[in-house]
């Protein structure tokens, strides 16, 4: 486990990262937004639809900083990669397509079999546009 004072050091390193290209890429708004640990984890939890307790939040925040401190070593490579295109895949495959022909698929019953709530042969979900 990283000790408390080390965490805050690594956080400074990443969040206020001074003088590197990374800084110019971070909008000042997001720096402010994430400037406090609690707000940061709360925001991430909201984006990811996770329920996170306060204790979990503290731990996750520390571990996030620990991990960010490690992966920060990629900055060492900035000069080597500046001219490279990013790789999001390594197959070299492009535009794999087929004729749009209908073929047999799961029956409605099979598709619904694992659902916790159904109604009239449909998935039943909580309302998303309710006012309450």
């Amino acid at each position, binding site marked *: 486990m990283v000790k408390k004072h080390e965490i805050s050091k690594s956080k400074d390193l990443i969040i206020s990262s001074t003088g590197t290209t990374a800084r110019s*890429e971070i909008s000042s708004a997001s720096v402010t937004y994430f400037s406090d640990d609690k707000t940061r984890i709360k925001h991430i939890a909201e984006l990811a639809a996770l329920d996170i307790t306060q204790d979990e939040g503290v731990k996750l925040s520390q571990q996030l900083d620990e*991990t960010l401190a490690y*992966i920060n070593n990629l900055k060492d490579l900035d000069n080597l990669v500046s001219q490279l295109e990013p790789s999001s895949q390594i197959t070299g495959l492009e535009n794999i397509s087929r004729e749009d022909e209908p073929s047999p698929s799961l029956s409605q019953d*099979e598709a619904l079999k694992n659902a*916790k709530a159904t109604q009239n042969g449909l998935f039943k979900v909580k309302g998303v546009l309710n006012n309450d």
Partner: protein
Amino acid sequence: MTELNSLTIKQAKEGLIKREFSSFDLTEACLAQIEKVDKKINAFIKPIAPTYDDVVSAARKADKLLSSNQDLPLLGIPIAVKDNFSTMGIRTTASSKVLDDYIPPYDATVVKKLKDAGAVLIGKTNMDAWAHGSSTETSDYGSTKNPWNTKHLPGGSSGGSAAAVAADEAIAAIGSETAGSIRQPASWCGVVGLKPTYGRVSRYGVIAMASSLDSPGPITKTVEDSALLLRVLAGTDEFDATTSLPPVGDYTLPVVDNKIKNLKIGISDEYFIDGIDKEVESAVRLSIEKLEKMGAKIVKINLVKPKYATSVYTIIQRSEVSSNLARYDGVRFGKDRKLFGEEAKRRIVLGTYSLSSGYYNQYYNRAAKARSLIVNDFEKAFEKVNVILGPTSPSLPLHAGASENAAMFGEIADILVEPSSIAGLPGINIPIGFSKSMLPIGMQIIGRQFAEDLVLQVAHQYEMATANENWRKKRPNL
């Protein structure tokens, strides 16, 4: 006489064809071994699915086909499958409570291919939940233990599959690797694990971890069995648009050939990282000398330090994890997101952060550029050498509990397999001996994309040349 469950696929096939025993006998022997040892190693998800009756009826069916002289590559062979492969009508949890009651309505392509080849699905193996980890300690169904010493970890995420093969609970098993999840547990359990080229084996029906990396592959007792299984599993799939177009190799392994003679084997000192276990290092260096004596040319190469691959992998994988796990909303199948374990939450949090507005360039994009650097690095290396060799894991199997509170346990444990995974290259772990404490040591052989043929041949030649080494006679004491 040898117990039937300890046979290799090749030996079992010969026995079945000669009618020395039936698929039923073979299957019963595996089930008896599971009954005997799985309380100690927990390699299978309980209750074991499929049921006893299902397994036996599949074996009986295979026996019928055998008696009519049907020739299928895996006819009557009991095989265990990692629990992140969808199996029609058979519970598939990926070792997460979120999928505790999930019964897939279809088979993963890998499972379909096994069935079409006549295999008997004997059970679903334990793993790190969602394949997040290198210990199986993140499983919601209890950790698997290393069959060689149950106080130690089997590695992961395919730890259940590797342990099941090492403990002779199955003739062979299927695993999946994102970066290390086949090779590392194979190394820690002393078995053969092959990660094919990304796209060589279909991902359709595999519960996704990181879609640009996930590669299903075989975990077996010998290299020959690995080749045999790869031939069954590999190929394009209309349900997975990322499957590779080049034709599938034959992967036949000739008993005698001169593949090793003048073969250029690249060794990078960067892979003998600071802090590497001394016994692991000396065992791998000794194996390199053996290959040199067999006629190989050892060539020093310099590869990008693996610690950068760990960072690239951590960012890309966790970003893809956060995106892939977004689908689990408990509506169509599975339970509530509240049931995600600690490790899944940790990975979702970093992935969501690295993809979020304002941070994308700093993390994901920087990692994607460094990924290009690593891909180019290997391409340059393969202009000079035919294969690259190194330790699979920098450590011996660690003690149970080692992954607790370690924010990046999985990623650090897999540091030596991450670079080749990021570049989509094939790699195989083969056992090369034991430590003084009787824990297995493994070595990996990496090839260029689609060089499974060469990787398997080199591994096979090494295995044959060292077939009489004393350590190979050892069996786990369970």
